[in-house]
């Protein structure tokens, strides 16, 4: 316990260096610091508590195994987040919740239903208290397809650019763009619907 208290004063970079030398106590401190963030990212993608828990733990195991590759160009938390994102994408693909690009492209060419929706309202989130807005966003995310949710989460919450998302998802930039477009349109519709539902 004493050693953990000592480690709590160390920076992530110091802990990562110690962990790279095999100090598992240092790695445990990193896990303790960032476990919520890594779990939350997994949950945002797979939308299931148990799966998110397993995937986040698997990510930490992978993180330990790949520690030698961590060079500190990005923060440790960012580096770990990339690992959990890749695991989630692989898992969604395994479960066939992420469809093959060719099917997505076919739908894109024929025009997804979102494309033909009228622009909803200037701002379907206007006037909402923050907690309520978060609750509605969360509900709406549950209703998006895995493809749409993944690009939206990676772009809007994780701040990744089109090219990086394409790399994680193993698809073209064009596919990322169309998925993001439909995801936003669907999200607008869902938030507007939830708003109307609440007003009635």
């Amino acid at each position, binding site marked *: 316990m004493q050693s953990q208290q000592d480690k709590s004063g160390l920076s992530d970079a110091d802990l990562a260096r110690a962990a790279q030398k095999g100090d598992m106590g240092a790695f445990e401190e990193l896990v303790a610091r960032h476990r*919520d963030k890594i779990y939350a990212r997994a949950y945002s993608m797979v939308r299931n508590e148990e799966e998110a828990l397993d995937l986040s733990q698997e990510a930490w*195991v992978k993180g330990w195994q790949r520690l*030698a590759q961590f060079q500190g160009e990005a923060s440790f938390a960012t580096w770990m987040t990339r690992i959990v994102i890749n695991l989630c994408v692989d898992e969604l693909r395994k479960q066939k919740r992420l469809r093959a690009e060719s099917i997505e492209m076919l739908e894109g060419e024929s025009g997804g239903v979102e494309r033909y929706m009228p622009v909803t309202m200037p*701002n379907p989130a206007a006037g909402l208290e923050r907690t309520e807005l*978060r609750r509605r966003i969360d509900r709406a995310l549950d209703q998006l397809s895995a493809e749409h949710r993944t690009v939206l989460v990676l772009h*809007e919450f994780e701040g990744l650019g089109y090219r990086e998302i394409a790399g994680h998802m193993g698809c073209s930039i064009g596919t990322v763009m169309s998925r993001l477009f439909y995801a*936003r349109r669907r999200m607008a519709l869902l938030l507007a619907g939830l708003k109307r539902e609440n007003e009635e």
Partner: protein
Amino acid sequence: MNDHLELNLELELQAWLDGELSAPKARRTDPKIVGDEEASRLITEMQAIKSALAGNETARTVPEPRAMYWSKIERQIQRQAPGPRPVQTPRQAVWS
């Protein structure tokens, strides 16, 4: 104009909004937004969604105590890891 913009234009507008266009391409896109009511509406909607999502991800915490969460990771590491060689603490030492 058609009620719906061409898909390529819609994606171009989105890329413009996301700052994914090169400066010359973005300059060429500007007038398309100014001069088209449907394009402006679409940009407004996408901007509203972008702003609504920014900083509004629901915070989630691991639904397990720290020790329980860590113990599964530690077990997995010890079972399969070639990684950095773990520093053995007296508690973990195996005496033969």
